[in-house]
């Protein structure tokens, strides 16, 4: 049974059609968290976030409080919000920026106050035309309301927020690449070390980069206290989380549920959530956290939705997007399409990723569309091993960023779980399902 008693923290206004307006926001407790934060010391606000044990909601799951504590002391520093949501099958930030832009803006102002930053940027992927308009409108309204700009709500804190559009590049979700894009360059990830923009970020200054959902949690955390947030979920996975469910389910959508207290089975089958698989067919496999994550078989459906729980089974909760494949799904086709995605989106800096993704895509293509060979299966694994040696999880890295080592996830999963399907493709001269 799904556990659905937890409060809705970031999707509390989902019942309102005008949830994106300032009027609705103010009528439902909007900017109260900010007002409270401004009466506190900045360090105390940061301490609440630390106490909340809020793990970053972008994909890497790094503790937000710890990220903040690493910010190098400098006269100039920046806060950058990562709204470049492009991990395939992830659509929860899209939901937040369109449906509750003021909540995001309030979260950004709270974070900026805690960090004592006076310039923040909200980077949204360019394909979110409506989201960009809604967030820009929310920023404009916040200025008019006195919640943003000079001396916010009469305090001695001032902040400017710039809404910055991306232009169609998955790689810009990687934080150093996002910073490059914000500097007006190609979105090439930066060489590490330094590992963290908190040391050297935008224009070489210390910069905190946080995800949209992470920011959207802050008004609630400040209002109700970090301890109330930490009381939800379990272990390191505190709070609720937005899960984006898609694929072969009856009710795909974004669902905010308590972490760990619910399982993948709850998410997929509960009538209030996924509502089961289309036509009551059996689950063949599912992706637990975005296409960079290794796949799971149906035997892991009872696994709790927690970061460490999923990690212990050799995958990741990642961006919180779950894709369900049933027995009508061709795993070769699915893995081929994911590989094609990586091949298109590789930025081209590192040879293993740039060349490897293309080779893998072409081999997967010929298996799926005809011309594949039995030995291609081992060739695929060998190439994958060149990109992420040992094919372990978490993967070893031969590249500047983690896009490269994410490429083998779907291929290795599909071959491990469905080797017979691959062989059938080779023997059949293409997809037997077509």
């Amino acid at each position, binding site marked *: 049974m799904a556990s659905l008693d937890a409060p809705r923290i970031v999707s509390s206004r989902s019942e309102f059609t005008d949830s994106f307006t300032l009027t609705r926001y103010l009528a439902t407790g909007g900017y109260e968290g900010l007002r409270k934060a401004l009466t506190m010391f900045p360090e105390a606000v940061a301490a609440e976030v630390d106490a909340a044990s809020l793990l970053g909601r972008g994909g890497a799951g790094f503790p937000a409080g710890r990220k903040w504590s690493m910010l190098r002391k400098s006269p100039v520093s920046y806060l950058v919000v990562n709204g470049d949501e492009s991990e*395939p099958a992830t659509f929860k930030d899209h939901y937040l920026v369109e449906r509750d832009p003021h909540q995001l803006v309030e979260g950004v102002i709270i974070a900026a106050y805690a960090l004592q930053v006076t310039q923040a940027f909200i980077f949204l992927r360019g394909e979110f035309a409506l989201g960009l308009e809604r967030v820009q409108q929310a920023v404009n309204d916040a200025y008019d309301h006195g919640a943003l700009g000079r001396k916010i709500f009469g305090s001695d804190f001032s902040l400017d927020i710039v809404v910055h559009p991306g232009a169609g590049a998955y790689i810009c979700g990687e934080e150093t690449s996002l910073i490059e894009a914000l500097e007006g360059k190609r979105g090439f990830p930066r060489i590490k070390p330094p590992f963290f923009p908190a040391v050297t970020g935008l224009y070489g200054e210390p910069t905190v980069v946080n995800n949209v959902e992470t920011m959207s949690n802050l008004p609630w955390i400040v209002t109700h206290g970090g301890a109330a947030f930490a009381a939800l979920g379990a272990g390191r996975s505190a709070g609720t989380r937005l899960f984006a469910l898609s694929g072969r389910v009856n009710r795909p959508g974004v669902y905010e549920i308590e972490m760990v207290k619910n399982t993948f089975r709850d998410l997929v089958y509960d009538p209030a959530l996924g509502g089961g698989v289309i036509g009551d067919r059996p689950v063949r496999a599912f992706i637990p956290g975005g296409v960079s994550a290794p796949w799971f078989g149906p035997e892991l459906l009872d696994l709790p939705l927690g970061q460490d729980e999923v990690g212990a089974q050799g995958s990741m909760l990642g961006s919180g997007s779950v894709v369900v494949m049933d027995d009508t799904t061709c795993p070769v086709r699915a893995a081929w399409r994911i590989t094609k995605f990586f091949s298109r989106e590789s930025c081209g800096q590192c040879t293993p990723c740039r060349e490897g993704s293309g080779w893998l895509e072409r081999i997967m293509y010929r298996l799926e569309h005809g011309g594949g060979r039995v030995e291609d299966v081992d060739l695929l694994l060998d190439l994958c091993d060149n990109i992420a040696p040992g094919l372990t999880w978490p993967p070893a890295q031969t590249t500047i960023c983690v896009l490269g080592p994410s490429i083998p996830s779907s291929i290795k999963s599909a071959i491990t779980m469905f080797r017979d399907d691959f062989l059938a493709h080779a023997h059949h001269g293409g997809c037997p399902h077509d």
Partner: protein
Amino acid sequence: MSHFRADVRQRAEELVAVYPRRRSAMLPMLHLAQEQDGYVTDGAIEEIAELTGTTPAEVRGTAAFYDMFHLEPVGRYVVGVCTNVACLLAGGDDLLEHASRTLGCAVGGTSDDGLFTLEETECLADCNIAPVVQVNHRYVRTTTPDAFDQLVTDLRAGRLDGDVPPHGTLIRVRRNGGLRVERDELSAERAAARAAREARAATEAK
């Protein structure tokens, strides 16, 4: 002689002023160029270089990296059909094929009347209404071949002009606000605020 129209030039200059460094206005300004011309023209590249303190080669090299910037003319409507994994499981590749037939152009091509450009896109983050279709980066939520054909009819008849502006127009809400304060003054304010906090902390500690 400016390539940008006077009003566009003014918005471009406002963009430059928003950022701590001029070059940061690159991406928004390239979007602005597409708003004026539908795609990124050579003239716009020259002018963006001047405005951002870069060279035309740097502007072109940056623009070429990003899928949303078109360096060649495109249709008034750029139709994107997603075929990534969630859409694949909902028949995205079939819908793309259908779109190609309806529009009479190959994927990546433009229809003879110059009205439509068809693209196969990567995930557009709307996977609960799959397969996802965007026109000029507006979600149109047409998931079936019949709905797609109706969409094309409506676009041709101009019935969606309010919802779907011509290609290039991305953000119709203008930025309104900003600190409008010199950096030094802001630093002095911050220092004073910090001193006041420290004094308050000392008082509270007593």
